[in-house]
């Protein structure tokens, strides 16, 4: 068995095909006999399960630490309020009020409290669910509705990946904290784009992000259209390699709408993902 490899799939713009690429890639890898785990880090809107249809075997709630104030010990000195950068704790008169959803769980208030009035307890933010979809190991996070902060849950998902697997991480869209948490520590990032002004603009932002993080990366152009060279031109300018161009095909879009893998609907697409797997492994182990 080869050592583990973590490949994250990100995009900047939503709806470019992250889940399509991740799910199809994980499945061709499993069919090639690899130990593979599909890791859904889009905890706000996890969709991979709709395509892989895993049996979920374990569910583990994820908690973040929040302060709990013992009114008997509290002297209302205000030190907790002063250290908190997130307005999660207020001292009004002799009363200390906490706003748990604002809390980032840094622990500063507990450390700074001179009377030992603050302890921490866990607040549930979501769950990590694990199971199997045939030969593909499956992990996803599911953020509770109304919860603002997804990074702690994304971290919990990332740490649930079985050892020595090829982990295919399906990242959330965007370029800020949730995506960074999802791709941090990955060996390689696949940036999925589409040849439209929105797709290319957001690809530029995503390239800047992975460069900032110092992770090797390359591009997959999805819904590629003959005669449209927006993505090729842009990647040429930015000096980023294109690993695959997946053609625009209404049959694939319809298969996607039903929750089917691209290559189950159109067998000719299998080759795109097999080739992509080969190039990604080669690039990532360089």
């Amino acid at each position, binding site marked *: 068995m080869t050592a583990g490899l973590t490949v994250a799939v990100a995009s900047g713009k939503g709806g470019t095909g992250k*889940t399509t690429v991740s799910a199809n890639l994980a499945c061709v890898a499993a069919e090639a006999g690899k130990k593979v785990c599909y890791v859904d880090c889009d905890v706000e*809107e996890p969709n991979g399960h709709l395509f892989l249809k895993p049996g979920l075997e374990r569910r583990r709630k994820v908690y973040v630490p929040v302060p709990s104030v013992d009114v008997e010990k509290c002297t209302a000195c205000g030190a907790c309020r002063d250290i908190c950068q997130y307005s999660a704790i207020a001292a009004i008169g002799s009363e200390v009020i906490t706003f748990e959803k604002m809390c*980032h769980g840094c622990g500063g208030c507990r450390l700074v409290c001179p009377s030992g009035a603050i302890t921490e307890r866990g607040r549930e933010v979501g769950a990590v669910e694990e199971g199997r979809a045939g030969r593909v190991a499956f992990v996803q996070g599911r953020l509770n509705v109304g919860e603002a902060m997804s990074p702690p849950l994304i971290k919990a998902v990332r740490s649930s990946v079985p050892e020595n697997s090829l982990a295919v991480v399906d990242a959330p869209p965007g370029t800020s904290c949730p995506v960074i948490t999802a791709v941090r520590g990955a060996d390689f990032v696949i940036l999925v784009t589409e040849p439209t002004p929105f797709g290319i603009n957001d690809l530029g932002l995503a390239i800047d992000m992975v460069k900032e993080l110092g992770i090797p990366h390359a591009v997959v152009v999805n819904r590629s259209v003959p005669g449209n060279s927006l993505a090729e031109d842009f990647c040429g300018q930015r000096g980023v390699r294109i690993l695959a161009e997946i053609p625009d095909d209404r049959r694939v*879009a319809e298969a996607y709408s039903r929750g089917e893998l691209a290559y189950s609907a159109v067998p000719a697409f299998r080759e795109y993902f097999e080739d992509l797997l080969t190039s990604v492994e080669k690039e990532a182990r360089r």
Partner: protein
Amino acid sequence: MKEIVVISGKGGTGKTSLAASMAVLAGRAVVADCDVDAADLHLVLDPQIREKEDFSGGKGARILSGKCSGCGKCYELCRFDAVFKNEGHPPYLIDPVACEGCGVCSHFCPEKAVEFVPVVNGQLFVSETRYGPMVHARLGIAEENSGKLVSLVRGRAKTIAEKENFPYIITDGPPGIGCPVIASITGADAVLIVTEPTVSGEHDMERVADLAAYFKIPAFLCINKYDLNPGISRDIETKARDRGICVVGKVRYDRAVTDAQLERIPVVLFEGGVAVAGDITEAWNSLIKHLSQ
């Protein structure tokens, strides 16, 4: 004045294309782009920037090499794995990307060797477009606090709308259901959920509808590319009805939407987009009719 926020749960369902067209159809509206970490609305509305200001969403920590004694207190206390051991001097360093800006390291450093200062992590723009004023922003690369920047964009849009008596604020929201989405919708008059008839679109629409209900914001639904899978479109309509969400429109799958984007104009103004423009106009008219009731 009504503030309408376009959201979707799932990315890529057509929020920005729809918001751009709504800005045209509204006649007089302030437009706000709250998808601050992957803003695209400017690509079709072509804003001329009038005002620009730096945004600081919080503070960041930095170790001053002259003062650090290498005791490791910061390393021990940081819960965000932002402090790491350095081979050279200073003996510890802080990764600005991982730093959550809590200030614990700075507060507890016995040598006062950790500087904790405001960081600029984005820019806010107030611009003019052919269709009205536009407020937008750009979050710095790999930055956090997008929720704060979203609140700033909305606040500025509201000030302009109130001062100049605009009847609508049309806000292009971010995907997902987390921090920036919550910051985009709290206190708005209505959300317009744009979905598509795919298993993902349906699943994500339900999560974002739950979110709107959680914050008690009236929600309306538009099914984009409804003819891609008519069966799922019907399921989505039923689910919306069961939740008391009004389906204001169904927009056909039309290559003209992408072509208009390539031409960088709102699809309702695109020559080849007459049919799809009709669908969008119907959706907009139905939405404002419901909002005025």
